[in-house]
């Protein structure tokens, strides 16, 4: 099989011997008491910390529940109607989408570039993996502290470099036009290492004979990349794009920290989760913020479903 490992992994359980279900049913057809017992602890936590808040959140979205804990009353669809007419909801949703559009292409392309370079480079693999991946291991607060310092007007590294080249300073995080872009750049630096590792694994799954055969045909490095590597990486790219888009839609941490919780000038860097947070915990309106949470949930589901559809369609035509 020449497919990258992701393909191998996904199909493994289907190809590797008789299915597990088959084997255990053959052994004991009756209900096995050990099964429920083993699932129970996880199922309890699942019910307690996923199903419960999920249901409670939906219910809360129909009430005027407040963080200060006065008795909530049922308000029907009021929150949902308010949400539909609230420009800040749509503004923050747009900010989230814009961020996703800004970050996904570089996070895929740079990761691929890094992986290909690492694959081709000689004797520095450890160093490359270290420098490309280690930012991913930094806590977000560390990333934010470092980059706020880098973006600092006056004595930050970036503006220092700009003025050193005779260019004017940019108030990266203080200007409505650049704040989201600055956060996007930080995000690429911080998280590209994860996609890089996925690509690296995929590249290493391509047998070298494939390249050698192509070399004999006289294909140059670029042709080999275009004709062999890229197509073989299709599946990985699809997975990376899918994971990346969902991850970018969940923007909150670095946007919150790098704007000191303000959402940036003119709220230009407040994503939908930021608005959920502000509504629920700063403005104390748990009910309304639950309704917005569900809107966000719907967006995530819609994007995932769309991707799943595109993904499976591509698979079928390939």
């Amino acid at each position: 099989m020449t497919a990258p490992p992701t393909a191998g992994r996904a199909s493994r359980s289907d190809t590797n011997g008789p299915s597990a279900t088959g084997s255990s049913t053959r052994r004991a057809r009756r209900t096995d008491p050990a099964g429920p017992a083993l699932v129970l602890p996880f199922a309890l936590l699942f019910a307690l910390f996923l199903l419960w808040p999920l249901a409670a959140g939906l219910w809360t979205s129909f009430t005027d529940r407040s963080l200060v804990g006065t008795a909530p009353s049922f308000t029907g669809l009021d929150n949902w109607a308010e949400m539909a007419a609230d420009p800040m909801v749509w503004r923050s949703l747009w900010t989230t989408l814009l961020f996703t559009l800004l970050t996904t292409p570089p996070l895929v392309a740079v990761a691929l570039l890094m992986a290909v370079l690492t694959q081709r480079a000689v004797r520095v693999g450890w160093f490359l993996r270290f420098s490309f991946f280690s930012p991913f291991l930094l806590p977000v607060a560390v990333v934010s502290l470092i980059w706020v310092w880098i973006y600092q007007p006056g004595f930050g590294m970036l503006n220092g470099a700009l003025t050193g080249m005779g260019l004017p300073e940019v108030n990266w995080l203080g200007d409505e036009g650049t704040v989201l872009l600055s956060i996007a750049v930080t995000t690429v630096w911080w998280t590209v290492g994860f996609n890089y590792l996925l690509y690296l694994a995929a590249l290493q799954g391509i047998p070298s004979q494939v390249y050698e055969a192509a070399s004999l045909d006289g294909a140059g490095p670029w042709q080999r990349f275009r004709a062999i590597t890229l197509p073989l990486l299709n599946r990985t790219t699809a997975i990376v794009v899918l994971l990346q888009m969902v991850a970018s839609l969940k923007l909150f941490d670095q946007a919150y920290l790098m704007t000191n919780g303000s959402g940036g000038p003119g709220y230009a860097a407040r994503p939908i989760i930021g608005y959920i947070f502000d509504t629920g915990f700063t403005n104390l309106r748990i009910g309304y913020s639950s309704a917005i949470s569900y809107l966000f949930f719907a967006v995530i589901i819609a994007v995932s479903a769309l991707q799943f559809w595109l993904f499976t369609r591509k698979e079928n035509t390939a």
Partner: protein
Amino acid sequence: MSAPTQAAPAAAPRTAAPAPDAPRRRWRVSPTGAAATVSAVVLALLWLLPLVWAVLTSLKPEAETTAVPIRWLPVEPTIEAYRLVIARGDIQQWLINSTVISVLVTALTLVLCAMAAYAFSRTEFRGRNALLLLFIAGIMVPPQVLIVPLFDQMRLLGMVDTYWGVALPQVVAPVMIFILKRFFDAIPRDYLEAAHLDGAGHLRVLTSVVLPMSGPILAAVGIFTFVQAWNNFLWPFVATTDPALMTVPVGLGTVQGAYGIQYAQQMAAAVLGAAPLIAVFMVFQRQIVRGVTDAGLK
């Protein structure tokens, strides 16, 4: 990368996987290889620049950090900023909290998910498929959707500002069950049947046959969970307000110095907060790369 993982259960379960990229190294240096090496190293240095800048800043006296035009190297290097940060004691407390919570989350995830994965893989019971489907659906729920109701619920349960309140919701990662189940599914049933014939119950089979054969995948799930728990921000940020219970990302992100912003100290705190995982990565790079890749490809 995944080839050794696949082979592991069938072949030698306890041995470490072979180095992933060792056999593919080219010995002769081609011109493109040299060009790739040079550009890769340049890119890597560029990527390290922010970290280097943070470390350099942390070694400057406070007055030097805001000098204009900026100086790259400290003129009078000092570890004063580190001394002050450590004397405050917060960062040590947060490192302890991060460790406790990450270990708690990782241990619980491994134990509970392995048990559930085994049950789904090797036992038959009523409602099994429905439950499996429910857990699959659970993967689709982003934790961010739940923060507001979950905080409300924690308040009801009296678990705001407790270790358990921070840790338990992070254990609910059904995707880990599927990763483990896929692995358990691939274990040839002969092994298990032999054990069952010897009279071992499911718990025995799980602990003495299945788990020992699953070292690599358990390591992958464990490493991935640990890194995620260590760096998780949103939920710990919501669930803890007491600085004595905060994790590194939350503490560094919220608690301010009373004297205002002091860049050298901020960078020193950032370096201290980043150091443990970076140090571990330097030592166990191969294992971590594998763990993240294997568990990351959900």
